[in-house]
């Protein structure tokens, strides 16, 4: 999965947010718990990246870059 594909996925959920630069997506309540599980489902279905419950912590979802780093880690495993 590329970073651009992740940005597209996030933008589909919240077109009004600039995910390239936005930080604190969870802390500032930009992403809700439903967004988080929608992202996890989409990653699993379209990109075959499976996140575990242990991965779903604010640090991994607070910015697109943090989420992308997590995805790369899971892809490498």
């Amino acid at each position: 999965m590329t970073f651009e594909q992740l940005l597209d996925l996030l933008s589909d959920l919240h077109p009004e947010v600039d995910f390239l630069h936005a930080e604190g997506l969870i802390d500032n309540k930009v992403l809700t718990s439903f967004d988080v599980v929608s992202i996890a489902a989409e990653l699993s279905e379209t990109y075959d990246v499976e996140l575990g419950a242990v991965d779903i912590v604010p640090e991994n979802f607070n910015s697109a870059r943090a989420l992308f780093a997590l995805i790369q880690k899971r892809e490498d495993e």
Partner: protein
Amino acid sequence: MTFLSGGFLLLVGGLLIIYYALPKRLRYLALLGGSVAFYALCGPKFLPFLAVTVLSVYGTARLLGRNLAAQKAYTALHKKNLPKEALTAYKQRQNRKRTALFLLGLLLNLGLLGALKYTSFLLEAFHAPWRVDWVLPLGISFYTFQSIGYLIDVKRGKYPPETNLLKYALFASFFPQMIQGPISRYDMLSKTLYEGADFDWDRLGRGLVRMLWGYGKKLILADRLAPALSLLFRAQAAEYRGSWVLLGMVLYALRLYADFTGGIDIALGVGELFGVTMPENFDRPYLSRNIEEYWTRWHMTMGSWFRDYVFYPLNVSKAFLRWTKGLRGRFGNGFLSRLPLYAATLLTWLATGVWHGAGWNFALWGLTNGVVIILSLTLKPLYDRFHGRFPGLKEKKGYRCFEILRTFLLMSLIRLWDCYAGPAGVWGAFSSLFTTWNYGQVAAQLSALGLSGAAWAILLVGAALLLFVSLKKGEGSFRRFLDSPWKLWLTAAGLLLLCLLLGAYGPGYTASDFIYGRF
């Protein structure tokens, strides 16, 4: 013993002296001693149940930690000389061992909670020929969930287990949070729980202000409203229908807020006296603009517990992901493909409802929340389309007020499950809102609730003050105001005076229990 008893204040006062007299490294022992004393004074027969939870969770977590550490060492040692498949197989074997251990600890504690809390209800529900009359240990739902959260985190490798049994026992039993939470996380609470704070007048003053603010909410507002609400919600109160129900909803919202946030203020204030920072449990929930937001601002530690340990794991479980995949393959990205998400939402809310207590009302309260959340998710495209046609409306002050009022009324309606016995009672009250038009009667007979004119005035001013503080807290000005020492101590003195003058207490008066103390 409750927060409202003289014994509690004596215990806190005595503990403060002992705590600050001890060397820093031993101060946590004073807190542990105080916690055991508090729990024993609440009911010595409850202590064995707490001990079972402490010992079983501590032991299980230690074994999990030992297994994880051994796996790490083995992997590091054999990373280069063993094939990848052999290492993976080894990790899988260890993971299975940890899962078995974890399940043992989990089932023991959930089983204990379940047996004590739900046996009586289940026997009755299934018309069993015998009954049990077991007393629920104080705060069992809170300390069990806090302990299970810790166990899950250790199992996930989020942090290593606590090796000191006494320190762990303090985490599980820290007395201010025993009655009604908050449900703390080990990695957050342990930062300040064991370090032994230096004595600081400023912190002491802040803790006192927080406690007195909580006592004020409880004694001046919540307990003043309690008798009137008992009258309104009593069984078969056929005369209190229609607008009486609406009035009851609003007054109950005020009472519940004052009671629960008041109790949490006292708990957090006591913690602050000892330099212990516990998590906030509320973030001005009645200013929420929708139900989803409300549940991120009301009883936050319980909400985040169910989110992190039930909702997320369910949704990212292999079974749910496979189910979603299958549905998307067959039905595309529409409503049906979201069935797993909706099922997880309903299960989480059912569990949340049942956590509150054994009874159909609790389960139905949880499910109603889940259904309303699912409805709001399903209708989101319509909502977005509406706002697409009226851009900028969301940011208008009037519209924001409308959203806040709508959410307040919706949550108050859902709370009818708290107020009336059984589905028939709730339905009778709910339907009367639309069929019985008796505003005039309510206005003329307000005195029937037993509240004097002065009591109504106090309640109105109190509610307005809570709203004012909520609005100000958003800008941080209330905290800044207390930065000045003389303002801090003056506020403490003022709050104490208000509690003494206006609080409901004294001879002939029995303080009502904290509502969340029942759970």
